[in-house]
């Protein structure tokens, strides 16, 4: 039987049939959308609350729409000034950028030393560093608090950067050991023959070839440090070095009599950097997940 594929009507018919076969399941879409709406209720609450005054909040139902958008700025200003969030966000930003940056860089250097250079018992060295992640954070609290207290590192900006850097080293090391190991060995041999020093091989050959993993790791560690409450609340108690999450908690705490509208606004403010990073660098976040497993 001959088929005339030059007949447009025939082709249209075929296309229609194919499309029908691939039609998405609208039922599943409907269920998924419904679940999503339920899932996002707390966000709805968040977005109506930041536009309410304290008085409005206390007198209306939590789900009511705000009377006007104007109170938002006042809430922001209150959260910002009462909670000392300005200073705290600068602190947290510096901890997160420096801690995550240094940790990723140092882990990369260590991974280079472990995978690309002839080192006896490289595996043992790796296990030694990686052993740091075996333990839950609670295991570090008492020694770090008192160790920092004795050495004067407590309540210091530098101490915070150091401790965050150290905590954030083992995981990137694990990941980078894998990524670096996957880069062809001949690449660095070729570069070495061409006159590259070890530092040069590391910086010009290995690092650029693992850029995706490095960015993803930086993002994961950045988010961890920015979001951390445990270490910062224990090691940074003075207002000068307080982190954003500690400031948020202080705002919610005993002595302040701020309304839920201000506290919720502060929660939103404290989440802005990580959410923005997530929106713009989602690809790296998701690939970072894959690295973790």
């Amino acid at each position: 039987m001959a088929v005339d594929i030059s007949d447009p009507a025939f082709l249209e018919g075929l296309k229609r049939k194919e499309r029908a076969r691939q039609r998405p399941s609208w039922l599943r879409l409907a269920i998924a959308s419904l679940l999503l709406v339920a899932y996002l209720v707390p966000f709805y609450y968040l977005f109506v609350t930041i536009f309410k005054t304290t008085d409005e909040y206390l007198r209306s139902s939590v789900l009511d729409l705000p009377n006007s958008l104007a109170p938002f700025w006042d809430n922001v200003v209150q959260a910002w000034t009462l909670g000392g969030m300005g200073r705290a966000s600068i602190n947290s930003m510096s901890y997160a950028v420096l801690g995550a940056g240094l940790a990723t860089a140092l882990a990369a250097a260590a991974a280079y030393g472990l995978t690309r250079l002839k080192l006896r018992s490289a595996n043992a060295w790796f296990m030694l560093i990686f052993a740091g992640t075996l333990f839950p954070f609670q295991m570090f609290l008492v020694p770090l608090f008192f160790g920092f207290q004795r050495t004067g590192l407590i309540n210091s900006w530098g101490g915070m950067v150091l401790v965050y850097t150290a905590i954030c080293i083992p995981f990137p090391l694990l990941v980078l050991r894998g990524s670096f190991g996957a880069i062809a060995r001949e690449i660095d041999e070729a570069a070495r023959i061409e006159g590259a020093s070890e530092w040069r091989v590391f910086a010009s050959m290995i690092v650029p070839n693992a850029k995706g993993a490095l960015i993803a790791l930086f993002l994961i560690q950045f988010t961890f440090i920015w979001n951390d409450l445990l270490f910062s609340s224990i090691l940074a108690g003075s207002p000068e070095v307080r982190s954003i999450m500690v400031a948020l908690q202080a705002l919610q705490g005993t002595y302040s009599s701020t309304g839920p509208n201000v506290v919720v606004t502060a929660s939103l403010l404290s989440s802005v950097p990580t959410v923005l990073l997530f929106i713009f660098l989602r690809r790296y976040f998701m690939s970072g997940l894959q690295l973790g497993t």
Partner: protein
Amino acid sequence: MKIKTLMASAAITASAWTAAAAQDATFYYDKNGWDEGFAALIEGASEASGLDIAGQQLTPTDRYQAYVMSSIAGGAAPAIFTWWNGKQLDSLVETGEIADLTELWDEAIANGWFSEAERELFSVDGTPYAIPLNVARWPVLYNKDAFAAAGIDAPPATWDELLADADALKEAGYIPFNAPAVGGWMGFIWFSELMVRTDPDAFVGLTDGTVPYNGPEVQRAMEIWTDFYERGYFTDAREQDETRFMVNEEAAMYLIGEWTAGILANRGMEPGEKIGAFLMPPVDAETENTVIVEAAPIVFSADAMEEMPALMDAARYLMSPEAGNALGQANGIYSGNLMTDAPNAIVSDVNAIIAEDAPRSVVRWWEAVPPELQGDLVSQMNAFMLDPTAENAQRVMDDMQSLNESYWAFQ
């Protein structure tokens, strides 16, 4: 190699951090929200002593205490720091690191700044080791408009009057008492007040292990407390904004430390105009009239005092009426110095009441109780406030007593 320069710069930065504190002495405190007042105190202390004194706030309280304790255990007590009186001060003084301030107190009493009663609050075994940052009595603050609306013309002077006024306020649409349980510590307020109003000696006995938490004395206080809840005298203990019901005038009375007057003033309830104060009357006429006093001490390291005798001048300043006035003006806090101006109408009201009735002072439960028991017991009291039934009261009393027993058994 670049790594070397990197490490070298890291070493330089590290040494810079540790060399940061170049002052003669640092004044540590955990009271956040009093920054302005502390700034004034520290400036004055520096001027008076000629020393370069720096202020350092550390929060929250548990880690502040850990910091100070660890410093002392490490042999490097902070030169000046705020602490708590009662059992907390006892164990601090036991370390032997705290300066004896007997001469300074003799001087202060001679000057008429303080009375012997205050000296006692800051002493361990008769020796004063601390000076007052703040002395706060615990009256009942009340909304004058609410009282007027309920037809009450004078604060209650007897227990029966108190109950009658509470009923009248309820009738007028008010909740008689604001009683939040936020922050994990407010549970003891009504417990200890009712103990003091029924049996002040038993209250003191509770704090040294001689009176059980499930004995008849406590049973009686808990019955009253349960009864008050049944009568609908209290606000919802789950409210997180502790002054909300006072500020929006749903509740009429608030049993709390004097310093709350400052917070209420900030939220538009002017002391004297809208807010008044009275001491809660005893339940029985024959019960001794008593006032609960909260005292925040400032202590000095014995070593630092020896090294820098000028620190005594700083201490003298911190005890002085000028320092008291500075703190009062900045944060509405009363230092207890008799020669300062009362920072607000509430303090002057309470001063007048005490001058007239001369009640017995007892240390607040929070400071009087052994620190190891504080948290465990107060959380039981909080639990009662969230479920104020007779059965729960019994359970709470039994649990408190078993905690109490096991603590004292260890001593």
